[in-house]
């Protein structure tokens, strides 16, 4: 990946508030996410981590400022193009229940990227193989366990051949014994050098897989560092507290 190190997503002076301005998600927020990195966002619940990454593919609108993705400013006209390049994995999987596993994985490429059906199926099966679910291609989502559903959702994201994958608390809705299988796949993707922005509470995963970790509080990243620095020498007092509570239990 020769383009690694380039800016992938840039937030410029972004404001985002909820509830008549009371809840601050982003406050004059400027930040650049780098291509080829696994960037983990953590913070206390309600800090707006999910909302922040949902802004990147325009599932949420921002109040002020701009978001630039690979040189293209996110707006009404560019929204659909950008969404084709930015895939997303949700907390609640959001698989399409009336479609088979394979249809879930090929639906986007066929309908949105206008890929040929055979081509989408071939790459779809390849990605299902990579998440270990090729033999469940004909199953319906309802027949799968939570962990399997999330792996299908990851295959669905991968089959869009995205430049960036957003993960919105991908293991929060899972039973504890299924968290590992999903995190393992995410680690594999991270090692491949894919660009990923991940909101998660899995601190041991963050420590292992992240290139950078940021802590969101009061509308800003109050701390951004590599995992070692983040966990061992956090500068900010509330980050220290957070790590003590969540990690060094």
């Amino acid at each position: 990946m020769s383009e690694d190190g380039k800016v992938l997503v840039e937030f410029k002076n972004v404001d985002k508030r909820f509830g008549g301005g009371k809840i601050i998600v982003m406050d004059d927020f400027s930040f650049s996410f780098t291509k080829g990195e696994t960037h983990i966002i953590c913070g206390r619940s309600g800090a707006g981590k999910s909302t922040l990454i949902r802004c990147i593919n325009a599932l949420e609108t921002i109040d002020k400022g701009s978001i630039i993705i690979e040189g293209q400013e996110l707006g009404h006209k560019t929204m659909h193009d950008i969404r084709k390049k930015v895939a997303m994995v949700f907390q609640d999987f959001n698989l399409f229940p009336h479609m088979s596993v394979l249809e879930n994985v090929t639906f986007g490429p066929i309908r949105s990227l206008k890929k040929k059906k055979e081509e989408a199926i071939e790459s779809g099966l390849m990605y299902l193989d990579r998440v270990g679910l090729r033999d469940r291609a004909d199953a319906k989502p309802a027949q799968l366990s939570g962990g399997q559903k999330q792996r299908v959702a990851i295959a669905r994201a991968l089959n869009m051949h995205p430049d960036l994958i957003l993960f919105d608390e991908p293991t929060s809705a899972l039973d504890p014994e299924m968290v590992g299988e999903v995190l393992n796949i995410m680690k594999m993707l991270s090692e491949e050098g894919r660009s990923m922005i991940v909101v998660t509470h899995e601190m041991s995963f963050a420590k292992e897989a992240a290139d950078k970790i940021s802590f969101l509080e009061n509308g800003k990243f109050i701390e951004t560092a590599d995992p070692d620095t983040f966990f061992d020498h956090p500068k900010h007092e509330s980050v220290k507290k957070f790590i003590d509570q969540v990690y060094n239990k």
Partner: protein
Amino acid sequence: MHLHEMVVYITRGIGITFKLVPCVIVSTLIVGMILGILRFKNIKVISQIIDLYVTAIRGIPPLVILMALYFTVKLGSSFMTAFVALTIYHGAYVTEIVRGGLEAVPKGQMDAGKSLGLGYMRIMASVYIPQIMLQIIPTLCGQYILVVKDTTLVSVVGLQDIMWNAKELIAVTYDPIRVYFIIGVLYFVVCFIIDLIASRVEKSVSGRYQAQLAEKGAQ
């Protein structure tokens, strides 16, 4: 006049009902789908117009719509007048049924569709509509039984249906009790058959529907 002669005489009018009902089912489905989807999209002005239509129709008896249309708009034939009136009337209810079905789909389905880069209409056509069809069939069948029953009104615009024949028969036999009893039984049989079909359909899809619920429950 024997009872069976009366039955035969009245039943000759049933053709109108059998022609009208399928036409209204198709037209209200089209109206309901289009308006239901537009209403779900929640664009302010369009939503207000659709709400006004639905609210107005809820408060106006179908007979009034039928008469108003008959005296104000030239639609060529009595059949067309009845067809359009019933479409306007029941279309409003089907709109609400479709909208209700769409609202019941988890919001994450829209997020998932959007994040694949798909447009609103594609998400509706491929993600939402297939999911709600299973769920709204029972409610729709209930609505279509009302359509069948409302066809008793169309003789007022000159359609020679069961009720028209009944009035003729009463004029001859002076026996309204038996005539209306026959009509009651006839309509009951037709509606009962629709009910049977509905519950068959419901049963055959309920397996898949349950699977969907399980999926939602797991979310």
